[in-house]
Every structure is written in C-alpha cells, then in structure tokens.
C-alpha cells in the first residue's frame, strides 16, 4: 500500500508534530515530553476542538485510540485524556485536557473522529464528564436508572446488587 511507502519516505516524526502544534497554537498547547513517535501535551479546554481539527486535517492523525477520564479528588479537577494515533506517520499523541471538577464540560471530538463516540459515552457514564456536541450522550455500560458515576473517587465501591 501507498501508506507504508509514505512512512519509508519519512513522514512527520514526533518532534515535527510537536513543533507544528506549538507554532500554530502557542496559547493553547503545552508540550511536556517528546520522543520520535510519542508526543505528550497539555491542551487548554477552550482550544481543544481547534487543536484536534488541526491535528486531524494537517497532521494526519486519523485514529483516536482512547478517551479516558481521570478524577483528581484532592486537586478538585478532572482530566479528559485523548490518545490519538497517526497511521501514516506512526506517531501517537497524548493530549490532557484539564476540567474543573464541579462543572466538567468539554467539546466533543466525535464529529471529527467517529471512533470517539462510545469512548466519550463511556467517560460520561463513568465520570459524568459532559461532552458538548456529542450526538447521543447516554449511559452505556451501567444499567438503566443508575444515579451515580462509579469511577469517581468519591463513589465508594463494594457490593450493591
């Protein structure tokens, strides 16, 4: 396939991706660590959608691996963590978006990557993070009528059923 040939010709490595991101969005993106095929970045909540769009269209990041939530109870914040892979460049980027814990809301990236659909639904189900613009933000794993967000740190586990 043509795609593998493209890699051999030398696509964008992690360093180039990081540089282009910083150049384009100096106010939103903060790169924490870069290797030749890994990029670690903190992205501001406001600019997430623009950054994601840029990454998809200009940097060929065509696959979203996962959307995860992290609940920092003591720091009173939440993380939405995006892992995005580029098939043509073989680079995986980690983008961390920090959200306030009392109002965790962030733009949905489902319109960009259809694969994020269920990941975001699951994160909503487990953490209560609301993804604005998601086509169908409903409970997915827990049974109907669940009134708690089980993966939040203030939810005490143990037997319930």
């Amino acid at each position, binding site marked *: 396939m043509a795609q593998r040939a493209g890699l051999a010709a030398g696509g964008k490595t992690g360093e180039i991706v990081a540089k282009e991101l910083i150049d384009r969005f100096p106010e939103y993106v903060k790169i924490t660590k870069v290797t030749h095929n890994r990029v670690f970045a903190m992205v501001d909540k406001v600019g997430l959608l623009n950054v994601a769009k840029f990454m998809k269209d200009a940097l060929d990041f065509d696959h979203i691996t996962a959307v995860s939530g992290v609940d920092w109870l003591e720091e009173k914040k939440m993380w939405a963590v995006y892992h995005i892979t580029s098939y043509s460049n073989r680079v995986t980027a980690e983008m961390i978006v920090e959200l306030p814990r009392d109002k965790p809301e962030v733009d949905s990236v489902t319109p960009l990557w259809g694969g994020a659909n269920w990941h975001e639904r699951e994160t909503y189900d487990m953490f209560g993070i609301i993804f604005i613009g998601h086509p169908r933000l409903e409970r997915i794993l*827990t*049974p109907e009528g669940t009134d708690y967000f*089980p993966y939040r740190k203030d939810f005490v*586990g*143990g*037997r*319930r*059923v």
Partner: protein
Amino acid sequence: MDLSLAPNAIAMSAQEFLAWSKDVMDQLLTASGAKKAVDKITAPIWSWALRNANYPLHFGVACCALEMAAASGSRFDAERLGMIYRSSPRQTDVLLINGWVTAKLRPDLRRLYEQMAEPRWVVAMGECAISGGPWYDSYNVVQGVDTFIPVDIYIPGCPVRPEAMIDGFMKLHKKIHKEMKGTFLED
C-alpha cells in the same frame, strides 16, 4: 372423596364438569393407590430418559463459555452423554450459567429460567456464578446466581475445566436418579 356435587352434574357448565370429573378421578386414583403404583413402575423409565437427554441452553456468558465450547469439542465430546445444545429455552432442560451475572443481565436471566419447561435444572458453572468470584467487591455483579434462581449443581473452578464440567453433569444425573419423578411428577 367429594362426590356431593354429583347430583348437580347436569346443572354444571361443560368446563365445570370437566374440572370436577378430573378432580374426582384424581381422588379416586390416589385413594386406590393406582397412582402410586403407576409412579413406581414408570419412574425409572422417565428418570432414565431425563438423565440421558439433558439439553443445556446454548447461552455463553463469560470465560467458562469457552470451556463449555471445548467440552463439546472432539477431545471431551459432551454429546456422548446426550448433551445437545438448543438455542430456545422452551426446548431445554438445563440452564448452564457460565459467568458473572450483572445487574443488567439479572432480569433477562430470570426470564430465561422462567421460559424453560419443568422439569428443569440450573447449573452454576465457575466461581463467578457461584459467589461472584474475583469480582467480590464489584458494584455491578450479583454475588452468586443462587440469590435469585434455585441452583442444583455448583461446579467450582476459575475457569472450570471441561472435565470438571462433564463431572458436574454426571453429578446432575445422580441427582435426577435420586429424585425419581413418576408419571404424575410426584415423589
């Protein structure tokens, strides 16, 4: 024996008459001991048939479902014992629960159990079905299927090996042999 209604038989509706006559026949048979005798004679036949035609429900839940599949493979060949998997609960005798049961699944499983025709048996296969197993502190896992369905045979193991599963079915056969239900399905 209640024959007091007999003179009014003409005044009864057809259905009342049928119910009444069935009642009287029942009482007659029980009192004369005929029922018991028929039970005694036929019980071994039915028991043999029930033992050797145990159709489990084709229902894979989790890990043990793979071992269920392996048990019907050529090395273990559970069909030797007359275990033929059917997909419709109406046609099966054994509900084989081979995995953890969550809050979402519980009503469906209960319904499957109720759709099965008597005589039916439930086999809890693996730790999860017996007691919740490795998910003992989960908020969504039912801690043992015997909390909502009567279980006949427990097969421990995590996951259960095919040999153990076949052994569990042999134990079920023993249990059916002991029950010895007669034609009228009485003891």
